[in-house]
């Protein structure tokens, strides 16, 4: 009787899990395996095994450039997001007038489709956009418009614009869940504001910042639509992958091999990052 009910219970659990598992295997695991297999097949063939797709990509100097570019973009954007988010969160937690409005503003880049944001940024930072009009109007020594679009710093800026909310939100919520007494304690003990930030607030909200920055990093690392339209001469891995299948005839194997490299890089990096994070929060 008992064994029967236990079996039944397992059955119920399994059947409850079934949709989730079906989704995981059908829409993620199986396609992922298809990509793996495809990356090991010679181009355009359904039989045979080869590593040539990996080797032919990795052995070029371009591969290194692309990987370095991908990391440069995503890490710089992450770092910039952290700096910006901490400042923003420190301000917003004070609940100044209009803080609700700015809280709402903070999530806009996540709600509005990224491509529209990118289009707006392209227009704004373009050589005849408002940004350059302002700069050239304010600083008379700037004679030529500053090229921001289609440069690496410009891309980093775009990435940050789009993906900082992850970091900002977690930072803000970490900051707001902080016991105000702890800051007062530091304050009374003789710490000035900078000390309080440096020795008390930052170490305490670090887990929150890191958790958010992981999200920012992942989004920036996998970013596709933005570099596709705003990358110009700079093509991170995701665009490099897409360009392979955008050719006629499409190079599925080459694209798959690059995708596998990208996925592996991200997983490796995340594992290291999470380890640091865990050590930090311990």
């Amino acid at each position: 009787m008992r064994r029967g009910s236990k079996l039944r219970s397992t059955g119920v659990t399994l059947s409850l899990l079934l949709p989730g598992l079906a989704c995981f295997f059908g829409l993620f695991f199986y396609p992922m395996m298809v990509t793996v297999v495809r990356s090991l097949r010679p181009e355009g063939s359904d039989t045979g095994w080869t590593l040539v797709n990996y080797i032919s990509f990795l052995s070029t100097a371009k591969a290194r450039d692309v990987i370095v570019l991908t990391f440069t973009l995503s890490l710089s954007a992450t770092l910039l997001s952290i700096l910006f988010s901490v400042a923003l969160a420190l301000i917003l937690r004070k609940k100044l007038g209009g803080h609700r409005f700015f809280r709402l503003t903070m999530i806009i880049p996540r709600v509005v489709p990224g491509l529209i944001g990118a289009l707006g940024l392209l227009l704004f930072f373009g050589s005849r956009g408002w940004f350059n009009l302002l700069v050239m109007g304010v600083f008379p020594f700037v004679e030529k418009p500053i090229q921001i679009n289609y440069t690496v710093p410009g891309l980093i800026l775009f990435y940050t614009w789009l993906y900082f909310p992850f970091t900002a939100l977690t930072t803000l919520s970490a900051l707001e869940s902080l016991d105000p007494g702890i800051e007062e304690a530091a304050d009374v003990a003789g710490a000035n504001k900078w000390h309080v930030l440096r020795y008390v607030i930052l170490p305490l909200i670090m887990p929150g910042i890191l958790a958010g920055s992981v999200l920012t990093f992942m989004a920036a690392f996998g970013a596709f639509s933005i570099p596709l339209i705003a990358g110009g001469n700079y093509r991170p891995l995701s665009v490099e992958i897409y360009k392979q299948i955008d050719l006629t005839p499409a190079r599925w194997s080459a694209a798959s091999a690059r995708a596998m490299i990208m996925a592996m890089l991200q997983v490796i990096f995340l594992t290291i990052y999470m380890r640091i994070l865990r050590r930090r929060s311990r």
Partner: protein
Amino acid sequence: MNLLRIYVKSILRGRKVLIYTFLLCFGLIIYVPFIVIMLRSVGKNWFGRLWLPPELTLDWYRWAVEVTKIFRITLNTLIIAVIAVAISTLIGIPTGWALGRRKIPGKELLMAMILLPRMIPPIAYALGIAQVFYRLHLVNTHFGVALAHVAICAPYAILVLSATIEGLDERVLEASAVCGANRFKTFFHVILPLILPGILTSIIFTFTASYNEFTLTLMTYGKDTVTLPVRTYLAIGEGYWEVTSAMSIILVIPSIFVLFMIQRQVTPEKLVGGFKGL
């Protein structure tokens, strides 16, 4: 570094002017792109370096409606989003229930597995999905594109719903049983109302995710299932950024609607909750 220190210090000291300068810049950098798009969408003969367009026109909007069939595309996007949301929610409730309330050996691992799609760049499995969907003739169908979106949306739904269901008070369910409600009645009269806010959060997240999804759509769309982000992408490539801007303005309206819903219904903390967890 020193400069940074001085700046941070002055922010900390609460110098209102600096703080509001910072906030103003922040607000500008977030909103100005949309203002610029707005102007571009109604400007004509706007050449050289001018702050404002010399002529106003609604031609680009007419073009967006007549030529790019923006409403048809909006409809596509909404159909796909609704299918994706429905499937994700239907997956999310039972799976969230199992993960939230039932004893499962290796639950952590299972959760990590279900969230794995969020750790891998979408383009990696988008390639696989495209190939599989080609074979199954799912490419260029609303259902197919929606199904591809589910790959991204379902983990969201499972995450949000399992957290909600985990937070259900066991005693309430026991109380319901004590009151004589059977499982069916308990579900509809007690559980469902209790997890409804969670379901709503999940719907908003999955809807936003699907509505804005680009990578997977680009791999699985066809001429009948062009969605707004894909159309925007194509339009940016085609030139005529005036028309693209007009399309973008039309496209951004539902997003603003969603934003206001989020603002009313979901606190930023909840939003973080939704984004949290890898």
